[in-house]
Every structure is written in structure tokens, then in C-alpha cells.
């Protein structure tokens, strides 16, 4: 059985003491970063280009969510945090009591965009950047 997006639950717990977890009503999720730039080490005698990979970009996760009551203020509050919180994207496989964490990282909220239009739900785009400072 493949992991299916429909069953995922995404939660962000802020870094402040006593911060409550915010469960997002996710409609889409994308991950970026994770790419390593080429460092060119070709010299004059080479007949083909030689590269070695540099350091990977920081991992970023972007979620499109439908806003529930109170959550816009929560996520705007996270924008001012200096410490990272914890982002967990969990999935419970069919017929299993075990929940698999697809994503479980320390991260900052680095972008929050709220949009709404006539006859539409308020939706937000929330970007998280992985905290690699402890690694």
C-alpha cells in the first residue's frame, strides 16, 4: 500500500513555552531545497567537465491550507520567533495503529500568505524552513 496524501495530518508546535500545536487543514504540500550545487573542478588538461557537489540547500516545506478560526494569528505569531519549532507531517497506514512521520523536523515559519476571494474559503500558504543550526 502506497502512502497516500489524503490521510496526512500536518502539525506545527511553536517554540515558545506552553505553545500549542497548530494542526493544519492541508490541501497540498511541497518540499524544496535538498539540492546540491555543482562546484566546478575542471582543469586545463581535462576533456570533460568535472564537478563535485557542494552543500545541500536548506529544506523548505510549503503547505496550502484552509484556515480555521484562530490559526492566522497563530502563524503570524510564529514569524517573530527566534527559536525553531517542530513540524510533523504524519500518516497512519491502512489498518495500522502505527503512525509514520513523513516529516519530523525543527523548523521556522518563514512565510505566511493569506488569501481569500468572494465565495471562496480563506486559504493560506505557509512556508517552513528547516533549522539546521543544531546539526
Amino acid at each position, binding site marked *: *500500500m502506497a502512502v497516500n496524501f*489524503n*490521510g496526512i495530518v500536518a502539525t506545527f508546535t511553536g517554540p515558545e513555552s506552553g505553545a500549542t500545536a497548530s494542526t493544519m487543514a492541508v490541501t497540498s504540500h511541497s518540499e524544496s531545497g535538498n539540492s546540491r550545487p555543482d562546484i566546478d573542478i575542471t582543469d586545463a588538461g581535462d576533456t570533460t567537465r568535472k564537478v563535485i557537489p557542494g552543500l545541500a540547500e536548506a529544506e523548505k516545506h510549503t503547505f496550502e491550507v484552509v484556515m480555521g478560526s484562530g490559526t492566522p494569528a497563530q502563524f503570524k505569531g510564529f514569524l517573530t520567533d527566534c527559536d525553531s519549532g517542530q513540524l510533523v507531517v504524519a500518516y497512519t497506514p491502512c*489498518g495500522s495503529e502505527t503512525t509514520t512521520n513523513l516529516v519530523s523536523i525543527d523548523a521556522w515559519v518563514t512565510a505566511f500568505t493569506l488569501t481569500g476571494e468572494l465565495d471562496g474559503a480563506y486559504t493560506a500558504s505557509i512556508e517552513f524552513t528547516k533549522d539546521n543550526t543544531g546539526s
Partner: protein
Amino acid sequence: MSYAKWARAVITGASDITDLVSTRVTPYLRNRETGFPCIVYSLPREDLETVAGGAVQTRHVELQVQCMSRSHVEADEIAEEVIQHVTAQTVTDDTTGTAIQCVEAVRPTSIDREFQDSYDGSPDLIYITTVNLTLTGA
């Protein structure tokens, strides 16, 4: 694995639904031996996500639940209970205890409303509120 068994077990297993329609739950066609209100459910289509080797990894199943009543309001009440109670869960065989079908996610996607003329001379029309859901599972 059977989505047909899953659908029937979940609909008839919810007391809030059966309090309204009793045992009048049938697939595809209404049982004309019994009256109203009632539920007719159907599974008209499955979309399969299949890998190169041919194994089906994920199924997306359309479930249509027609809630029929002589009262417009009651048809809607049954539909609301369907939305509340037809949720992701595993259905097990009562006898063997083994899993018949697990549905990981249920998304109610739309509601259709229509009516039919009375077939028996009653002044009351037959109101039909159809809940369309997408089930996702193995």
C-alpha cells in the same frame, strides 16, 4: 477487499443513520417492498494508481449515497448524518474478525438534490439528497 462491503457496513453501522432509515439501505436500486425514508448507495467508479510492475498501489473510489424521503428536510438530515459518520475506518468481518477493507480517507465532495414525482398517488414528492464522496484506500 471489498468497497461494497465497506460502504454497507459503515452506513448500516451508524446508529444516527439507522435511527432515520432503519434497515432500508440497498445498493443501486431502492427496495420497492419498503417505504421511506431510505438510502440507496452506489460505487460507480474507481480510479487506480498503478506502478510499472502492475501492482495497484492506491484506489480512489466514488461513493454516491442517495438519501430519499417524502420530506425535503428529512432527506437533508439523513445526508448530514452520512457526512458525519461515513468516515475513514477499517471494517472487519463479524465472524472472522479479519479486515474486509480499510479506507484511509473519506472526502465528501458534493451534494446533489432532486425530486421525483410520487409513484403511488401520494401528494408528497420523493426528495433525494445525494452525497458524493471520494474514498481512498488500498
